[in-house]
Every structure is written in structure tokens, then in C-alpha cells.
């Protein structure tokens, strides 16, 4: 039985400026952004549809101005869509009143911000407890839960400090703890790691993935960094000029870019970090069990590990599933081909035996 998705956006539009409804109508008929801008309307999000499963990290990737932040703010009702609907747990957010929407935000949806947005006049503990305070949780309990969330984010012992005494990475951990403390099911992360140093950013990504293994939140993560999107996202949506141009797994996007825009985007991506044996393997070769006792890979084995494995073996690497069946093989040729972005088969050599010809 198919579980209905946790969060579902259908044909979302957001137009700022004059006569937004007319603008939506024209966009539906195929008008583009530039035409609208001439009339004083700015289309931030155009016909965006996607769904996010429970426990999934869904990344929305796009350059600045692509509408990704606007899209995110429609998911918790901070912005009201001009058209379309957002369903969360089967409830239509666009139909909710202000009060119900606030209630929903305080209990079920929390948010982590790009510049942390910690309250400078509150201690770390009071910051982490903010969402609970809004919910009306009694002081003792909310402090206990805030301390737990802080500990979860690696900030035990910093509860009584003040935000301005913390480094950027630690501040964002407080931001994360604040979002986790409310036990919200849906976590919206708006470029949350973009303001951090590359090394700290990596740490934070790792920590998020680590936390996600146990917490299983539903996360919508906004970023302009494709590497980050590939690392974090179970699925990635690429936005351009307000439209979602492709939605799929990291591998889908990397291996089958929907258009030139996405293709040009992924050029700089470090494939070795993203690709796994499952995406690389030649599935025309299968067997009920490996033919030899050599090491094997699984679908999830990352590219770099696969290379190392391949270097240790004298033959193709077998990829096995949970039951030990061979579901495909990865020839060394294929590894090199992906690394060099070369998909064609090797050409025949005019000296296949490889004899050394001496020119006497």
C-alpha cells in the first residue's frame, strides 16, 4: 500500500506586485516572467508541484532569485500562495486561518534560517526553548527539552551562554536545536549552512545526516550549492526562474539532466562523492550468487570505495543485494568512463594483442 506523502505542493504560484491573479492566469497560458515584469508583477514561483515523503530529505536547489526561498515560505504559510495548494498530513494549509496556521507552525513545522536568526536577548537555552515557550509549555519542562535538543546538537554545557559568544557553526546548532526542540515533524531549512565556512558546513551536513538516521524528520532543505544538495538530498528539485525544472534523486539529476541548464549546472559537481555502485553498474549481468569468493559491493557503495575495490580485484566488481544475489557488475572501464564523463564504448585497437613492435 502506498503511503500518502507527508507534504504535497500542487501547482503553487506566487506573484508579487499588481494584479497577481491575472498574472497567474497569464502564466498558465504560457506567458513568461519578463512579460509580467513589464506589467509590474513579479512571478517568484511558477507552477511548482512536488511531494515529500515522511522521513525524506527533499532539497530544493537553485540560484539566488530562482524562487526557492519563496517556495519554502509557502510551505509553512509565512507566505500565502497566489494559487495552488499545500497539503501537509492531508490538511490544506491554504484553507487554514491565521490562528490555525500559527498553531500548526508552533507544533508541527519548524524552521532553520540562513543567518541563524537567534534572539540576541535570550540565552542559548532560552533560544532553544523559544518554540516551546510559544506552545505554552511550562518553564521546567521546556528547559529540560531545550537542554536535550542542545545536547543532541552537541551543545551540552553551553546552555547558559549567549548567542554572541558562540561561533557561527555553534550558533547554527542552536538554531537547529531550537527547531528540533518542538518535536515538529517537518523541518524547513533555508540555506541553513550557506553562511558557514566550508569545513564547518561539512560538519553540519554530516551531523544533520547523522541526526536524521535516528530522528527521521521530514526535511525540506533549500540550497544554492549543488554539492550540498547531492550530499543531503534523498531527492532534489532544481529551480530556475521560479519553475522547478527537474525533480529526482541525485543520481537522476547527475546522470540524466533534464535540460542544458541542469547539465551545465552539474558540470562542477564532484561525481565521485555522489555516485554509487547502484547507479554505475551494468545490470545486464546478473546471477543468483557471486561466482567467486572475492570482495563484492552493494548498491550503496560510494564511487571512491568502488574504485579502491576495483583496484584490489583482478576482475569486474560484482554488486550484490541483501540476499546475496548479483544484481549487476562494474567493469573498471565503466568507472574510468564515468570519471572522465565518457559514456561511449571503447574503440577497437589495431594491435589487440599488445605486441611491442620494434622499429629496427
Amino acid at each position, binding site marked *: 500500500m502506498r503511503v500518502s506523502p507527508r507534504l504535497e505542493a500542487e501547482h503553487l504560484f506566487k506573484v508579487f506586485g499588481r494584479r497577481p491573479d491575472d498574472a497567474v492566469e497569464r502564466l498558465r497560458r504560457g506567458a513568461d516572467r519578463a512579460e509580467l515584469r513589464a506589467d509590474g508583477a513579479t512571478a517568484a514561483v511558477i507552477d511548482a508541484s512536488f511531494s515529500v515523503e515522511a522521513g525524506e530529505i527533499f532539497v530544493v536547489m537553485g540560484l539566488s532569485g530562482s524562487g526557492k526561498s519563496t517556495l519554502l515560505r509557502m510551505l509553512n504559510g509565512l507566505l500565502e500562495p497566489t494559487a495552488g495548494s499545500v497539503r501537509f498530513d492531508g490538511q490544506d494549509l491554504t484553507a487554514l486561518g491565521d490562528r490555525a496556521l500559527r498553531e500548526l507552525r508552533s507544533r508541527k513545522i519548524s524552521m532553520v*534560517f540562513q543567518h541563524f536568526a537567534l534572539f540576541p536577548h535570550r540565552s542559548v537555552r532560552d533560544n532553544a526553548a523559544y518554540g516551546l515557550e510559544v506552545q505554552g509549555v511550562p518553564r521546567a519542562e521546556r528547559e529540560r527539552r531545550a537542554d536535550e535538543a542542545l545536547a543532541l546538537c552537541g551543545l551540552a554545557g553551553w546552555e547558559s551562554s549567549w548567542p554572541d559568544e558562540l561561533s557561527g557553526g555553534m550558533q547554527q546548532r542552536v538554531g537547529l536545536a531550537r527547531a528540533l526542540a518542538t518535536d515538529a515533524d517537518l523541518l524547513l531549512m533555508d540555506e541553513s549552512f550557506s553562511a558557514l565556512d566550508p569545513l564547518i558546513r561539512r560538519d553540519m551536513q554530516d551531523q544533520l545526516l547523522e541526526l536524521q538516521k535516528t530522528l527521521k524528520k521530514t526535511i525540506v532543505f533549500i540550497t544554492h550549492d549543488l554539492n550540498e544538495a547531492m550530499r543531503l538530498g534523498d531527492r532534489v528539485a532544481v529551480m530556475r526562474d521560479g519553475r522547478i525544472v527537474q525533480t529526482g534523486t541525485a543520481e537522476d539529476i547527475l546522470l540524466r539532466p533534464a535540460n542544458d541548464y541542469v547539465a551545465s549546472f552539474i558540470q562542477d559537481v564532484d561525481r565521485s562523492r555522489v555516485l554509487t555502485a547502484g547507479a554505475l553498474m551494468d545490470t545486464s549481468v546478473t546471477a543468483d550468487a557471486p561466482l567467486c569468493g572475492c570482495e563484492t559491493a552493494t548498491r550503496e557503495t560510494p564511487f571512491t570505495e568502488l574504485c579502491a575495490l576495483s583496484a584490489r580485484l583482478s576482475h569486474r566488481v560484482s554488486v550484490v543485494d541483501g540476499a546475496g544475489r548479483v544484481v549487476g557488475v562494474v567493469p573498471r572501464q565503466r568507472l574510468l568512463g564515468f570519471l572522465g564523463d565518457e559514456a561511449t564504448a571503447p574503440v577497437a585497437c589495431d594491435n589487440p594483442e599488445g605486441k611491442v613492435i620494434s622499429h629496427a
Partner: protein
Amino acid sequence: MPRIHLGDWVDSGVDWLVGHLSWLFDAVKAVMEGMYDGLDTLLAAPQPLLMAGILAVVAWWLRGLLAGVLAFAGFALVDSLDLWDRAMSTLALVLVATVIALVISLPLGVWAARSKAVSAAVRPVLDLLQTMPSMVLLIPAMLFFGLGTAAGVVATLIFALAPGVRMTELGIRQVDAELVEAAEAFGTTPRNILWRVQLPLALPTIMAGVNQVIMLGLSMVVIAGMVGTGGLGGAVNEAIGQLDIGYGFEAGVGIVVLAIYLDRVTGALGTQLSPLGRRAAAKARTRAWSYRPRPAVALAGVVVLALVAGGLGVFGPSAGTSEASGTDVGKGKEIRIGYIPWDEGIASTFLWKEILQERGFKVSTTQYAAGPLYTGLATGQLDFQTDSWLPTTHAEYWTKYGKQLDDLGKWYGPTSLELSVPSYVKDVDSLADLEEHASEFDGKIIGIEPSAGMMSLLKSTVLKEYGLEGTYDVVDGSTPAMLAELKRAYARHQPVLVTLWSPHWAYSDYDLKKLKDPKGAWGKGDGVHTLARKGFTADNPLVGRWLKDFSMTEEQLTGLEARIQKAGKGKEQDAVRGWLRDHPGLVDKWAPVARTGTHSEAAG
């Protein structure tokens, strides 16, 4: 361009408001005066040094030991200048105006921060209030609220409102939008966003606004003094009016002490109130001179001092020692006299103050410009004034307010108005000589207050009669400024042409020539009249009769004026007392009472 009759509209608008909304103004007035009286009583109740101690402890708590010591020294100085009561009433006035200003401006600022439309609507109004010359607003305020505290509070308030609104709006708008969004994202209600995020973060800016409100309020105190608020503002005003530089400086120093104290204390209060400021202050605090007691200690200090004050029995002044004699016919009844700072006005006012006090009345005297004085009398804010020059000089006021006033007759006369020059100026003996000597005087006639009747007479009639309209300009100013100019020119032996009148002590101090008036343009001499509000004589038949029968000779008046002039500002009544001692029998002559023997009042 068509003439837009804006002034007429404002006039009729004000008239309508006075006519139809007087109940509202009365209510507002009652609230303001109630607040002011309560606060003033509280501040003035303890002995000055005890109160200075209390204020110093507050400064110590908020800023540190050095600030506390300096605050005590400052207030002790004010007390030693004999300005304590005035300083406390000014403090009360400023605090009341500040509180009301904040009650209005904080919500307005919050509203303006949340709505662009409100912000756009409020801004020009604030500009208007802040830049409109304060005297222009003071007169309508007087019509609405009468003379005294309420008008002063309103004038101060209007002036001080703008920074409160502006800084509140600015403070809230400055709060990082991401923080507000974060609060929204966690489901905070708009009201809580205001209270938990925006206001705490805007607090430093808002407190800077509060500080500005207080400072502007203090700077307005002097102007408010013109409508009879008393206090240091009143003192400065009187000193200016009588060219008493020393006294003016003393009162000015009092205002400065108050200003610095309030500025530093509210500044520190801003730090204490905002969590961020408190944290910064906690980090910095180490040194002995910046040691600050904990709030509880400070509170205890204030309470102890207050209890000491209470224990000394200085709360509430003990009942005045009324003279137990048959001459006490006033029995503490209040009489309010207003006066213009002209010498014969000061002399006769303080003369009557002394006489009435001897007769058991409680007398208050307040100095005004002529316009407010007549308004105050006509609206019944004042009981009488002794310096009305009729029928000529004050004719305009009499026409406007005569119906609401009782003329108690002339007590001195005839007077004369004239233009005068020092006698060293040759060849100028008559108004007719002036035309050809215009260059000598730079074409300037040094005038007095433009509101003085003499000035309009000079401009409208005298200049025309002698064909001086093109050749001379009348310089509007004030009596003290005119006298200062005369003094300066006289000392340098320069020609100067001033407006003057007789009797005046200047004629005995300087060797001056009254310019002859062959055409009689100045009219016949006036009499100096006493005017009372309608109904005063019915309420006080005895005093009414005394005033009606009152008259002074030139010798008496100039003698008294010279005595007061010599004694200096603030000592008028001592001078009067001394003069009366030298002229025994005058009190009984001017204020006769039937002696009924040993009738004791104080025993009862």
C-alpha cells in the same frame, strides 16, 4: 494670489473647541494638575538634603558611586542657591510631561512601525508639532487649559512628543527582519512578536527616545514658564524679564543640574532595562568608583532615607504660623496676582502681596507677558493685576477683554509715554527734530515688547504724525533688552533713541532727555489702573474696597521702585517690607481693618 484666511479658520476652530469641548479640556487639566500636584508634593516634602540623598542613591544604583556623589553635590548646590522648591516643581513638571508624552508616543510609534499609512500620516504632524514656534502653540494651550501647570505640561508635551514616536518607530523597524520571521515561523502571535522580540530589541533606541523626550521637555520648561508654571522656568523667565543676569544664571544652573541628572539616569536606566545592555554592563563592572549597589540595596537605601524623612516629621509642612491678631481678615484665603515685569507693576504687586499677607491672605504672584496676563484675568485664572495703563496704552486689551474685567480705578497718574535720548545727544529735543537726525540713530528706535500698547501707539500714530515712517524702524524687543541697550550706549557715550515712560527709575539712574511732543501724538497721560476679574470684588468686598481706594504718590512709587531695584531679583518682598518699615502707618492706611482686640485665631 488669493489671500487664504488660514488664520481665521484656526481662530474659529480654536473658538469652537473652547466653546464646545471645555469639559474635555477641564478633565485633561484635572488629570494633569492632579498628577503634577501629587508628584510635586512628594518631591518637595522631604528636607532638601534628604531628597538629594534619595536622588543620589538612585544615581549610584544606576551609574555608580561617582555619579551618586556628583548627583548629591549638584542637588546640594541647587538647594544652596535657594532654588530647591522651584527645582522640584520643575522636576515634577518634566516628569509628568514625560510620562504623558510616553503614554501617547510609545503606542503611536509602535503603530507607525507596523503600518506604513500611519507612519506617513504621523510624520508631518510630528514635524508640525516640533518645528512650530512654541509660543504659537502656547497661546491656544492657554485658552484651552488656562494659565498654570496644565498649559505648561501641554506645551512641553507637544514639543517632546516627536522624538518619542520617531525613536520607537525607528527602534522597531530596525529589528532584524529575519528575527521577526523566525518568531513568526514558530507560530508567535503578532502581539507576542511585539512584546517578546521587537520591543526588547528596540529598547535601547526607545530609551534614547525617552531620553530625548526628557531633554526636550526640560528645554521647554523656560518657555512654559511664560504661562505661569513657576519652577525654574518661571525663575529664568522673571530674571530675563527684569534683566537680572545673576539670578537668571542661578536658575539656569538649576536647570542644567536637573538636565544632566535626568540625562545620565535615563541613559543608565536604558542599559538596565535592556537585557543586552545589562549583560554588557555586568562585564565591564569592576572599579570602585563605578561600584553599584544591587537593586535591593539601592531600594533599601531609598526607603531608609524616606523613613528618616518621615521620622523627622518633614512630610507635609507644618501649619504656617499665622499671626494671632485682629488684623487677620484673610484667614488664609487665596489671592492670585499677576504682573508684567514693569517696575511700577513689580512694585505695586509686591506691595500688595506684603499687605495682603499681613492681613492673613495667602498670596501668589506670577509674572506674565501682557497678553497672557489679560487672558488669565479674563478667564478668571487670576484675581487682579495692578499695572493696567488706561485709557491709551492698554486700550487694545481693554477693548478685547474689558467686558470680562472690573476696573478698580487708577492708583497712580498721570503717566506719560515718550521717546528719550541721553542728554549728551545735541540738537535733538523734540520728536520734530528726529527726522533730520535719523542717521545718528541708525534709523532705529529701540522698542519694548511688541505686545505693549505703547508700541502699537508708536507705530500707528506717533511715527505718522511726525513723518518718521520711512526714516525710522521700530525694533521690537523687550523692556530689559531696551534697558540693556540704553545702558550699553550710555556707557559708550553713543547716541541712542529709546521708548520710555514716566515714572521710570531710568530717569534717576541716567541723565536722559524726554523728547517733546508738540503735536500731542502720544495722547494724554494714562492712569495706572488696577483690574480685577469679574466677580472678584463680590468675593472679596474688603480687598476690593482697599484696591479701589489705593493710590500712591510719585515719591512713594519711585522710592519703592528704587528700593526694589537695589535689592535685586528674588528679594522684592524684603525690599517692600523694609520700605514699609520706613514708612509706618501706610499698611493701615491702605488696608484699614476694624481692630477688635484680642481675638486669637491660632488658638482655635
